[in-house]
């Protein structure tokens, strides 16, 4: 698997190939914790302004501007405040945070410390997906190292700034990547999302002001403080600042984690050259889902020769979204009914059951796909699936419902020829092997 930067100096990936990059010594030798020192000589407003100037947007999937999120935290709240790192990486096709957590844990600690200093936070939690147990052990050691070096705990670097760090584990639930569901889970409850407003910035963990940020979002912060928000933004485009990690999987020769400047040109070159091209030379590109499974799949003819730039605006223009940056590359051997059935099963399994449209809708979608796959497809099924998606999208309690609807709508609308094969009259659909 490849881990490398293309079109820019590695920033996020700076320590990926340095021996013992996860240790405090090596982190410091390579410039680590200098940004914290710099930030501790800045005011809270100056830090937030730098993050705003960087045009950093949340890297977990929603893409919300980070500086703005931070500015929503009330300064004068008498309650304790929290920063919670969302390390519940579970969007299918996404695995970038895993390598940051494994090989550069101090970058996350430093990013969270800078945020904590700016927002008056004294307690930070890092919420890991339960399967990432070995990464928690790495982080616990890093936190202990930082504590020994007076970077975590009381009177950090001799100042009156106090900040404690704790790791916390989930136990297998995609929904806990949604920030309010994550907070429910961190409080020891089922991972059900909560009504917004109030937003977590006002009432989050234990009903106290809370910032929830993705791993990559937080590890970007030390770079922004080091080089200045404006300069970091200029690595990318005006509205999509900096560099971003893309996880690439599926039918390519070189799957991996790639760091690209925002606005990288273009998507075709990225898949067919940078990622080594199609896995099997005689199989053509059929589709790519660029933002983790929860975005519209793109047809090859929406990519090839279309000059798609890789940033928030470019992918929307091309008919999809950045999401979490998880590229799933699919070749012509794949039946999109089969692949969509697979994703429908995922969303059904991961629907938390809290709201009816998502719980029932995803369940019915699986039933329909099962029937189609067993050879019982009917001509009206494509419309039935779209109607069902329409009854989920925008009508579910949290974005998981929308995600399921988009993944399925995209396939039905963009790959009608695959569906047609299965939706012949009188159930003569062409079911093959199960998924």
């Amino acid at each position, binding site marked *: 698997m490849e881990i490398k930067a293309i079109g820019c100096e590695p920033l996020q990936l700076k320590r990926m190939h340095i021996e013992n990059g996860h240790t405090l010594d090596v982190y410091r030798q390579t410039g680590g914790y200098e940004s914290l020192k710099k930030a501790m000589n800045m005011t809270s407003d100056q830090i937030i302004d730098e993050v705003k100037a960087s045009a950093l947007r949340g890297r977990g999937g929603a893409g919300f501007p980070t500086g703005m999120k931070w500015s929503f935290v009330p300064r004068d709240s008498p309650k304790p405040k929290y920063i919670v790192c969302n390390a519940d990486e579970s969007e299918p096709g996404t695995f970038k945070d895993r390598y940051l957590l494994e090989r550069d844990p101090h970058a996350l600690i430093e990013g969270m410390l800078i945020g904590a200093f700016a927002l008056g936070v004294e307690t930070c939690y890092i919420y890991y997906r339960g399967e990432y147990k070995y990464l928690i052990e790495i982080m616990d050691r890093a936190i202990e190292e930082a504590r020994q070096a007076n970077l975590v705990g009381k009177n950090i670097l001799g100042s009156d700034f106090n900040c404690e760090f704790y790791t916390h584990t989930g136990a297998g639930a995609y929904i806990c990547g949604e920030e309010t569901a994550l907070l429910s889970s961190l409080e020891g409850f089922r991972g059900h999302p909560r009504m917004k407003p109030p937003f977590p910035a006002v009432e989050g963990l234990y009903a106290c002001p809370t910032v929830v940020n993705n791993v990559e979002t937080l590890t970007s912060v030390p770079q922004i403080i080091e080089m200045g928000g404006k300069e970091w933004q200029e690595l990318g485009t005006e509205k999509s600042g900096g560099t971003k990690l893309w996880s690439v*999987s599926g039918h390519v020769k070189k799957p991996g984690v790639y760091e690209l400047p925002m606005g990288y040109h273009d998507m075709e070159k990225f898949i067919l050259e940078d990622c080594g091209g199609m896995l099997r030379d005689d199989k053509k590109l059929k589709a790519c889902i660029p933002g983790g499974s929860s975005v519209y799949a793109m047809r090859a003819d929406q990519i090839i020769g279309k000059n798609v730039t890789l940033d928030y605006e470019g992918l929307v223009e091309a008919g999809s979204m950045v999401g979490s940056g998880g590229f799933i590359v699919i070749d012509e051997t794949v039946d999109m009914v089969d692949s969509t059935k697979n994703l429908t099963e995922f969303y059904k399994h991961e629907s938390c059951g809290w709201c009816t449209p998502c719980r029932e809708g995803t369940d019915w979608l699986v039933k329909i796909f099962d029937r189609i796959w067993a050879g019982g497809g009917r001509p009206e099924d494509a419309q039935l699936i779209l109607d069902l998606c329409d009854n989920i999208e925008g009508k579910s309690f949290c974005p998981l419902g929308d995600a399921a609807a988009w993944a399925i709508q995209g396939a039905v609308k963009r790959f009608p020829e695959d569906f047609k094969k299965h939706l012949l009259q009188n159930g003569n659909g062409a079911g093959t092997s199960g998924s």
Partner: protein
Amino acid sequence: MATVATDYTNKVKVTDEVAEFPESVVEEMRSHLTKYPKDRSRSALIPLLFVIQRERGYIDNPGVNFLAQFLNLEVTDIWETATFYSMFNMHPVGKYHIQMCKTLSCKILGEPELTDHICSKLGIKPGETTKDGKFTVTRVECLGSCGTAPMMQIGFEYHENLTKEKLDDLIDSLE
């Protein structure tokens, strides 16, 4: 929802028995409480359920009774949380819990064939445990390792870039 809470076809035996743990385990459980504010000990529930599962093999009734006392919660509070999360086993599993990632990237790179292979090798279906209690095979949703698909987890350990040969060697090497 993540897990089916109750097998409605079988009557579940409810017991008031409370599990007992060695002092070192109780000490470990206490250490989890220190991460959260004093009046928020319920936050420790998921980490503590992992301890129960490690010690008892699965989330069992006496273990849940213990946690209810330990955290001063109702037994139903513990079950409510435990049954939501797919990593908590409500029934005993084999010594080696093989969890095949079945989501899209793994699927298109051959997970269905690998699962068939391992199941026929062990003589079980997905979701079942071998008679000697050694292996359980389940198919699970995305484990966040798509770049090294197809992959699986045995217990907490990741095994990546799988092939039939690799699977065979691995299974044969487990004691």
